[in-house]
């Protein structure tokens, strides 16, 4: 998995996840978001357009990340989930915990 960041003019940080988010690499995403939080960023979009699979550990990492961001007064939105991954969020009811948009642009527009 590789992580790439882009920053919008309005300060929203978009983290693009390229590859699977699974038990072996979930800490990388948590650490990256934690770094950005410590640097003062508060609004995030996590873009999964390039992500074919997220396992239960990856889902758990996202829950923990979102909790930390919200505790700091921030917000995080998810985008670009494929149909299978979208179904995982629905089955686990995590779609009630996250704002999920079809594309990063739609997620950005919702801020």
């Amino acid at each position, binding site marked *: 998995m590789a992580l790439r960041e882009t920053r919008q003019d309005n300060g929203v940080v978009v983290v693009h996840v390229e590859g699977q988010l*699974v*038990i*072996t690499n979930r800490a990388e995403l948590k650490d990256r978001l934690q770094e950005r939080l410590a640097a003062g960023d508060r609004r995030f979009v996590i873009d999964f357009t390039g992500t074919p699979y997220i*396992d*239960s550990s990856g889902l758990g990492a996202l829950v923990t990340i979102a909790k930390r961001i919200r505790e700091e007064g921030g917000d995080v939105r998810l985008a670009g989930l494929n149909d299978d991954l979208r179904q995982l969020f629905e089955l686990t009811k995590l779609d009630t*915990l996250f704002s999920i948009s079809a594309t990063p642009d739609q997620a950005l527009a919702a801020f």
Partner: protein
Amino acid sequence: MERITVQVPSSIDCIEEAVSVITRHCLAGATAEPREHFRLQVALSEALANAIVRGNREDASKRVYVQADLGPDRILLNVTDEGDGFDPATVPDATRPEGLEQDGGRGLFLIHCMVDDVHFNAQGNSICMTLRRP
């Protein structure tokens, strides 16, 4: 019925490759739909993670044994670790409101969602999953 057996070391670094290899063999020669591939991927990766992390506690001296029986209408997957086992009845519902914000506890739930039947042996260290083929 064709049978595939694989031994997986107790390292989480082995999960991705093991899932890829076993899934490829299970679906070789079949006209598998993408949905079937995804169901296998979820079931195998979650069962292997549970076996390696919770069952064998990442003990390098232990192995996880995967056996796949491939039939025309179904795939039977057995994943067995060398741990003490657990009682699956004690695993709480991952979708209960108080559990939604917890980091863990969704693996077994997702397995139940993705396969048609789930059984454990009496010791609780071996899971048998049945996927009916479309």
